[in-house]
């Protein structure tokens, strides 16, 4: 198990280095940040001064060498637009994205496993229909539309919740609820399918023949064996959430990493783009290790 994790860590580190090189040079191909930072009628002198101040007038390889040297000292450089350390900007945003992702994902996992298992156990029953409806909404309704409708109903018409922002726990309800729907719809279907398959196994029939009750059959015997594909899908969804939830962040004014990354790309704030991608990549790398550990816990064959 430790050997497996070690191998994964080395592979991830190499991926991280490759990513850094790729993003550095690709971001430079997008154009000149001075054009976007300064007004359209800025003089050439102003543009040249901006480039000189931020080291953008140096040859590309020299810029890269300087960037790598700074990075070795954990210096991601300064945000071109915000005039402060890029890593500070990114970590501030990540401090909002991480809890949003963790809370949403935890709720999704618990709800999807419970409802998916119950749906599989009683095909065509209440939970099965509920799962189908939510899955359908999650797959077909755009996040944007759901978010706006939720604001109109729960914040403006009913006045139960704030429209947006991050001030109190109540502010989190709508963003989490909107972010919940799509991954829940996906994971609950995987749980249902996987459980259906597991429930038809011989050991389940044996347990039933021995008089074991339904709940232990579902949650003790079957679920563990049905979890491997579920873990894989959870990993995919978690990676998407760790990259930020652009729509939810945009509509609810949630200062997370997704919108920051999009804005930074559009504004050519290279240092913030690089810092955001590196931090996100590290988070995903850590999450992949956790998933590997989860595989090992669930399946001794992987552990050994």
């Amino acid at each position, binding site marked *: 198990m430790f050997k497996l994790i070690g191998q994964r860590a080395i592979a991830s580190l190499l991926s991280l280095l490759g990513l850094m090189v790729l993003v550095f040079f690709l971001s430079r191909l*997008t*154009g000149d940040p001075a*054009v*976007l*930072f*300064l*007004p*359209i*009628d*800025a*003089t050439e002198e*102003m543009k040249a*001064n*901006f480039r*000189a*101040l931020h080291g953008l007038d140096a040859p590309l390889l020299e810029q890269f060498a300087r960037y790598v040297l700074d990075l070795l000292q954990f210096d991601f450089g300064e*945000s071109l*637009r*915000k*005039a*402060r350390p890029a890593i500070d*900007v990114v970590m*501030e*945003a990540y401090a*909002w994205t991480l809890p949003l992702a963790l809370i949403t994902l935890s709720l999704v996992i618990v709800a999807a496993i419970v409802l998916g298992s119950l749906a599989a156990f009683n095909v065509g029953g209440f939970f099965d229909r509920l799962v189908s409806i939510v899955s359908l909404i999650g797959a077909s309704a755009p996040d944007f539309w759901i978010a*706006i409708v939720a*604001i*109109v109903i729960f*914040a*403006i018409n*009913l*006045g*139960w*919740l*704030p*429209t*947006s*922002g*991050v*001030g*109190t726990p*109540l*502010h989190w309800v709508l963003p989490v609820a909107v972010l919940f729907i799509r991954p829940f719809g996906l994971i609950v279907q995987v749980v249902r399918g996987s459980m259906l398959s597991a429930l038809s196994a011989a050991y389940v029939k044996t347990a039933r023949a021995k008089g074991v009750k339904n709940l232990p059959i579902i949650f003790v015997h079957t679920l563990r064996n049905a979890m491997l594909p579920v873990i894989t899908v959870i990993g995919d969804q978690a990676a998407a959430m760790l990259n930020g939830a652009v729509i939810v962040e*945009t*509509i*609810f*004014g949630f*200062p997370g990493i997704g*919108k*920051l990354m999009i804005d930074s790309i*559009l504004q*050519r704030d290279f240092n913030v783009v690089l810092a955001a991608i590196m931090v996100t990549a590290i988070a995903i790398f850590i999450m992949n290790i956790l998933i590997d550990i989860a595989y090992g816990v669930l399946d001794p064959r992987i552990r050994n």
Partner: protein
Amino acid sequence: MTIKHILVGALVASTTMVPAMAQDNTDITVVLSEELDLVEPCMATRSNIGRVILQNISETLTELDVRGDKGLMPRLADSWEDKGDGTWQFKLHPGVTFSDGTALDAADVKHSFDRVFSDQMTCESARYFADTALTFTVVDDLTVDVKAEPAQPILPLLMSLVTIVPSETPMEFVRQPVGTGPYEMTEWTAGQQIVLTRRDSYWGAQPEVTKATYLFRSEPAVRAGMVAAGEADIAPQITAEVADNKATDFSYLNSETVYLRIDNADAPTSDIRVRKALNAAIEREAFIGTVLPDGTELAVAMTPPTTLGWNPDLSPPAYDPELAKTLLAEAKADGVDVSLPIEIVARTENFPNVTEVSEALVQMFNEVGFNATLRMVEVAEHEQYYSKPYPESEGTRLVLAQHDNSRGDPAFSMFFKYASQGTQSGVNDPKVDDLIARASAATGEERAALWSELFAYVHDEIVADVLLFHMVGLSRVSERLDFTPTIATNQQLQLAEIGFK
């Protein structure tokens, strides 16, 4: 516990939850469309920064009344005088203090401009002095002479674009701006909010608003919804689709002009008949009240009607597709290849419904016989087409753009858009260059007359471009406020102008 019990319980619990609402006192909440990257006073001419800082935290020597007819008004400078030889003398208002407690003096004015022109930072307001060298001489604590080379007749107006900071302000972007304005910044939580609190020691009249909290939401429906839900009091820049409440939603000219820039050097648009045909092909009125909000005005100049020298005698080209076809036929008969492709280049999210407007323009052009296509691009790519050097193309490109001039004088527009050396100009005409040079150097009525003549010349004589619309801004304002947004709201939002009913 049944599902029914759970739902009823949730309903009862939810009715006890009261979200944070806007305050019912003299504190207000403003929800803006764009977060501030910086709160640097020398960047206050950038609209998103200006709405928070300009005349609230940081003040300028002079102030332009773009809403009424007061023209250029005193602010930190009580008076100014042309001393000849390009030198203007400004007398500062006595007894003004900054929010750090220090007194305003002439050295602060000099330092503020030193920062603007410093090569240790990139201040946006430097662009207004591109070809002008300024020399500051401190005469006494409250008097400063400013010599401009070459002489700058609108120097007092240009002083309305530079905010004054204390001499101690470093030559780098600051995160805690210090100004002479009626408010000081008491909180800035990046990504979330900025709070301005009224200064008891302000030198002028005390505004009614005691505290202003700025929030940032990029979605117009959310901004409008926040005012409707009582979470905010002012939401600038909402869209026509969500502006559905006459009691709270205001429409006003916002100083933006939408136009199609024509490259007069390209074929087939080098022929004036083709340019006239482009203008005649567009049914401008059809856009208003459909894809553009009611109140949008047809443009006859690059600047809004509140600008000096506005020419009331000009009228928009009539929609006349038959005339357009005839003009094209005449041009074709004289050997102009009118079948050459014309690509309309427009920027996504430039203004609400920009795609619909662009598509309609293309369709109208093609209906009279042009070979027009549309390319929607992001802001960075748009800039490549908009500013010189223009990329080569087969045929020509018409760049759909939006230009803002709330500064009161055409000097901020006409050189860039029409002079042969102008960065976004499609014109190379000696008479235009001459009129721009003379108008820029003139003062008073002569200046207004020359700008007026230039407006007529580019619109009627050379048909330099396709002027389309003076755009409308929409803002939602809480009914508890006594505040009417105006053309100035595009660039600044003076809290001192806000009262309570």
